[in-house]
C-alpha cells in the first residue's frame, strides 16, 4: 500500500505544556484511520498540525512524500471538517459547497456540476437554496462534509464530526460516512472519543492518551489484544482488577482472588477481563482455562447485551459477565451459584 501520510516524531508544546508527544504513524492511501482518545488528550492539536493551522514544535509531516513544514493551510492537499462544522451562516447550502471551488477560479458551469454532484452524493439534492441555519443537525453535518469533499483532497480530516448529533442520528451517519468513504476512495483521518465510532468505521485505529499514541492497530486487534492497560480500559468494556502478587503461574488480586495465569514473565499490576471472556459452566475437558465459582448478584437485562453482576465465591470480588445468546441461561436467577472459566489468554495482565 502507498503511504499517503507519514508522521515522524511529531511534538507540540504550548507554554510549558506538551499537548502532543513524539507521535509517529503512517496512513495508507484510501484508508480510514481513526484517532481515538479521551477529551483533552491532544487529538485536535494533532489534526491542526496536519492541516497547518498550528506549527509543530518538533518532528515532520509528509504528505505523498512531501515535507509540509512552512506550507500554509490553504496550500496543503488536505481539508478539514471542523468540530463545530464552521458552516458559513451568511451563505446558502450551494454557496457553502461552492466556496472552495470558486477560490480555484473554475468556470461557473464546472462549479455547478461539481456542487450538484457532491450534494447528490450526500443526499442533499433540492437543498441548494436553503440557508444553512435552517437545516437539521444531520443535514448541516452533510453540508460540512460535502464542502470539504468537493475539493477532492488527498486527505480529509474529520474532527469529531458526529459529536453534536443525537445517538440515533450518530448511528446512522456512522454507516453513511463509512459508505461514502468506500465509494470515493478518499483517505479519511477521523478523530473521536467514541470507541464505537472508531471501531465500526476504521481500517486502523490509533489510541491516544495524554499526547502519546498507546497503540496503532486494526479494530479487531485493538479489542482482542490491547497493548497497554489504558487501551484495555478505554476500548470496549472490561472488568478491572488490581493485582497484589504473582506466585509462579498464579496471580492474586487485591481482594484475594487467586487465578491461574501461566506465561507471564513480569509482575503485573492490573488485570482486565472482558465480560464476554467468561465461559459459564465450561466443559470438564476444556484445557487452558482458569476455573472458579461465582454467585449471581443481579441480572442486568438489556436484550442482546444482557449481563450479570456476580461475586466470586473465594474472594468476594465483583465482576460483570455477559450472558450468551442462547436459552440455556434464561432461568438463571439471583443467588444461583455457577461454575465459570476464563481462557488464560483472556486474562489481560499489565
Amino acid at each position: 500500500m502507498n503511504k499517503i501520510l507519514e508522521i515522524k516524531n511529531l511534538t507540540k508544546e504550548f507554554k510549558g505544556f506538551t499537548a502532543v508527544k513524539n507521535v509517529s504513524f503512517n496512513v495508507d492511501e484510501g484508508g480510514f484511520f481513526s484517532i481515538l482518545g479521551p477529551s483533552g488528550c491532544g487529538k485536535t492539536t494533532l489534526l491542526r498540525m496536519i492541516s497547518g493551522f498550528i506549527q509543530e514544535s518538533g518532528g515532520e509531516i509528509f504528505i505523498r512524500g512531501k515535507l509540509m513544514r512552512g506550507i500554509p493551510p490553504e496550500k496543503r492537499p488536505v481539508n478539514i471538517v471542523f468540530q463545530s462544522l464552521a458552516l458559513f451562516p451568511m451563505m446558502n447550502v450551494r454557496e457553502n459547497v461552492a466556496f472552495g471551488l470558486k477560490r480555484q477560479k473554475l468556470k461557473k458551469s464546472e462549479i455547478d456540476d461539481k456542487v450538484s454532484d457532491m450534494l447528490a452524493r450526500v443526499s442533499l439534492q433540492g437543498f441548494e437554496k436553503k440557508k444553512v441555519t435552517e437545516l437539521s443537525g444531520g443535514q448541516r453535518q452533510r453540508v460540512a462534509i460535502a464542502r470539504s469533499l468537493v475539493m477532492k483532497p488527498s486527505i480529509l480530516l474529520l474532527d469529531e464530526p458526529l459529536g453534536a448529533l443525537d445517538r440515533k442520528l450518530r448511528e446512522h451517519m456512522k454507516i453513511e460516512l463509512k459508505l461514502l468513504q468506500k465509494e470515493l476512495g478518499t483517505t479519511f483521518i477521523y478523530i473521536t472519543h467514541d470507541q464505537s465510532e472508531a471501531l465500526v468505521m476504521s481500517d486502523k485505529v490509533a489510541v491516544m492518551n495524554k499526547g502519546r499514541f498507546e497503540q496503532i492497530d486494526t479494530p479487531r486487534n485493538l479489542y482482542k489484544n490491547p497493548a497497554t492497560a489504558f487501551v484495555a480500559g478505554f476500548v470496549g468494556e472490561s472488568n478491572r482488577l488490581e493485582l497484589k502478587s504473582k506466585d509462579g503461574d498464579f496471580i492474586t488480586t487485591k481482594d484475594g482472588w487467586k487465578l491461574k495465569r501461566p506465561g507471564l514473565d513480569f509482575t503485573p499490576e492490573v488485570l482486565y477481563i472482558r465480560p464476554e471472556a467468561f465461559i459459564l459452566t465450561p466443559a470438564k475437558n476444556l484445557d487452558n482455562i482458569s476455573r472458579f465459582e461465582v454467585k449471581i448478584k443481579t441480572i442486568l437485562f438489556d436484550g442482546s447485551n444482557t449481563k450479570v453482576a456476580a461475586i466470586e465465591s473465594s474472594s468476594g470480588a465483583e465482576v460483570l459477565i455477559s450472558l450468551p445468546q442462547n436459552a440455556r441461561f434464561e432461568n438463571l436467577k439471583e443467588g444461583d451459584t455457577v461454575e465459570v472459566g476464563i481462557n488464560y489468554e483472556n486474562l489481560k495482565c499489565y
Partner: protein
Amino acid sequence: MENKKGFNITFYLLILPVLLWLIVLIVLPHLDLLISSFQGDSDAGGKVFTLEHYMAFFQSKIYWLTFINTAAYAIGITILAFIVTFPVAFYLTKVISKKYASFLALLLLIPLWVGELVTVYGWMIILGDHGVINEFLLSIGLIDKPIDMLYTNFSMTIGLLYISMLFMVVPIMSTLESLDDSLIEAASDLGASKWTIFTKIIIPYSMPGITSGGIIVFMLVIGDYVAPDILGGKSSLWFTEQIYNEFLSTFNWGEGAAFGFLLLMISSSIIWLALKLTGQKLERVGS
C-alpha cells in the same frame, strides 16, 4: 384564551411607561414643531396653513447646497469611521486576549465620559496655530509658519470622526465577538486568501453591526452642531447651523421647524436608500 389575554394586559402594562415617555418627551414637542412648520402669518395677522417654509429650502440655493454639503460630509465621515474602527474592532475581539480586550474597550469609552464639548476643545488645543502639532513641527524645523488646521473642514472632519467613532466600534465589536474563529480557518482551509476571507467572510458576517453603526454615526454627524460650529469655523456649511440661525438669529421659527423636518426626512431617506442598495433589512440590523 384566558392565558393569552393575561399576557396581553401585562404586555401593555410593561410597555406603558415606554409609550408615555415617547409621547410626552418626543412626539408632543415634535408635533408642536411640525405644526409651526406649516404655519404662516395671514395678512390679517392670524395663523394660516402654508408650504412656504418648505418651499424656501428649495428656492434658495444656499440652503440646499448646504444640505448637500452636510450630507456628503456625513456620508464621508461614516465611511471613514468604518475604515478607521474596523481594524480596531477586529484587533480587540479577535487578535488580543480577552482580558486586555475589555480594558482597552473601556478606554475607548473615555471620549464619552468627558463629553463632546471637552473633546472638541481638546482638538482645538491639538490643531490650533500654537497647538501641539504646529509647535512640534515648528520646533523640528519642518515648517517655518503654522499650518492652518483649525477652523477648516479638516478640523471639523477630525472632530466629528472622533466623537462618532465609538458608535461604530461598539456594534461592530459585538457582531465580531460572535464570529467563530473556525469560520476563518475553514475559509483558509478551502483555499481562500486573507483578502477573500476579509471580503467574503468577515465583512458579510459583521454587516449587521456595520449597518447599525453606520446609521448611528450618520445620524449623529448630520445632526451635530457643536463640532462644525466650533472646529469648522466661519467657512463651514453645516445644515444644523442654518437651522440654528433660523431659530435664534432671524427668529423665523416656521422656517427653522421646516428645515428640522427636512433634515429628518432627507437623512432617513438616505439611510433607507443605502439599506436598499446594499440589500440589508432593518430588522436584521441590531441583532
